[in-house]
């Protein structure tokens, strides 16, 4: 039985499908799924689903989580949001996650290098940068060129995190050398400095500006298209609940998921 299941998994992997159980051949045994009840239907996922997701997905994934639980009442979704690089590190250190959704292919890389992804990651959303300024735009920022003004207080993300990586790309595309005053640890920290009015401008994701209400205004700039950030997602090979994990990935890519992502300001690949 187990042998057949493994073959099914291997076949699914070979075909590039995400996860095993849910997409396995119907003849195979339903794989044991965490603490789920044995009385669940053959294909209905159950138990606890642990999703590690980039901080920028916090709002949209939390909303989708409730919808997912409504659709699969036997599943409880638990989220862990943090900087993608931090999550990748936790996963390679053996954190018991089912799904990893990161904010950049770079931060997915360590997980893939360690062979911890159950299938090739799928890009489910895209994000672009936007200039964020405090309400009223006290620094009169109009475009990327203002980031070179040493008189303005500027926050960028550190190069080690995806938003900083993207910032480097847009500045080199624009041929500009920014004069930042601080290199923030993650995009939310940069945004906080804007909403508190401590900096005149920051480069953050469009979705972050949209999610932060009236305290922050967003300004588009043409070079943003140079750094489109892909959000890859994968079921992890050590997933304790591959059934639910596969269902989650499918759910995020369903019309419901895509609508929620689009509402939050993400572009769809």
């Amino acid at each position, binding site marked *: 039985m187990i042998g057949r299941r493994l073959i099914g998994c291997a076949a699914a992997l070979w075909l590039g499908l995400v996860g095993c159980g849910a997409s396995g051949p119907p003849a195979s045994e339903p794989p044991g799924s965490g603490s789920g009840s044995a009385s669940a239907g053959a294909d209905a996922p159950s138990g606890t689903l642990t999703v590690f997701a980039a901080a920028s997905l916090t709002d949209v994934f939390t909303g989708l989580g409730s919808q997912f639980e409504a659709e699969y009442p036997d599943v409880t979704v638990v989220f862990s949001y943090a*900087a993608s690089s931090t999550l990748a590190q936790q996963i390679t250190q053996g954190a018991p996650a089912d799904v990893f959704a990161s904010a950049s292919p770079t931060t997915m890389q360590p997980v893939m290098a360690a062979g911890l992804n159950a299938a090739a990651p799928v890009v489910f959303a895209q994000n672009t940068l936007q200039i964020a300024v405090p309400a009223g735009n006290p620094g009169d920022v109009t475009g990327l060129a203002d980031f070179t003004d040493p008189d303005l207080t500027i926050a960028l993300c550190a190069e080690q995190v995806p938003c900083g990586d993207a910032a480097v790309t847009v500045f080199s595309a624009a041929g500009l050398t920014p004069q*930042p005053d601080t290199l*923030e*640890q993650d995009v939310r920290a940069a945004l906080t400095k804007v909403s*508190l009015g401590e900096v005149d401008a920051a480069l953050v994701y469009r979705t972050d500006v949209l999610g932060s209400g009236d305290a922050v205004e967003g300004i588009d700039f043409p070079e943003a298209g140079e750094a489109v950030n892909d959000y890859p997602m994968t079921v992890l090979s050590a997933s304790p609940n591959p059934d639910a994990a596969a269902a989650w990935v499918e759910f995020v890519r369903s019309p419901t998921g895509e609508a929620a992502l689009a509402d939050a300001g993400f572009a769809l690949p």
Partner: protein
Amino acid sequence: MARRHKAQVDGATGVPAALLIPAALAVVFLVLPLIALLVRAPWSTLGSLLSTPEVRDALRLSIVSASLATLISLVLGVPLAWVLARSQIRGRGVLRALVTVPLVLPPVVGGVALLLAFGRTGVLGAPLYDATGVSFPFTTTAVVLAQTFVAMPFLVISVEGALRAADRRYEDAAATLGAGRAMTFRRVTLPLVAPGVAAGAVLCWARALGEFGATITFAGNFPGTTRTMTLQVYLALETDPDAAIALSLVLLAVSILTLGLLRDRWLVRQ
């Protein structure tokens, strides 16, 4: 005292077994992570990991800012400790509670509070910025402020304890011999509590050196200006864990060195 209860204690060490086991567990728990750091350290590449200009900048910034924070804490904190220990002003208990809040406050919260007070739009920072154009966040001054905020209470508590423990008869004698209050404080009280002040200063310096949360929140993170060693460690952890371990090792070495040096001079108390 222990000898009187000889029957209950372990003959060789004088420590009851009921205490020895948890005490040993505590030692293992406290020391094991440090040993792990040493075991996992990338010894072969240590030199190259630590010789980058970024690391040198961060180390210099950390040492300079922690020392400045300690200096400010001494200048302001010793008098405050005296007020708490010796003065008769009303509401001393409340005052003590207030000034020690940063001890128990999560440092990130401290950073937010500092932003709200000294930030460009802060309670004190906004009028200052409007009047002079001076703004603290994202400057080395902010690093020192953040470190002073979290570290000064350590010094105050330590010095206050020393003042309370000091024999007041020496001060009384000085007074009867005609010394004024200021002179008594300078010539009698301060030398009496010097070990307490030194211990407080060391604690304060070590706490300032290790400051992370308030710094990254209030001062931001920029190489050379505000990126201290702890911030450098955190950032290195994102991409290069080996570099982070190497940097941690430096901080560990600096802490142990300081404790060792000061222990011989001041901290040994009979």
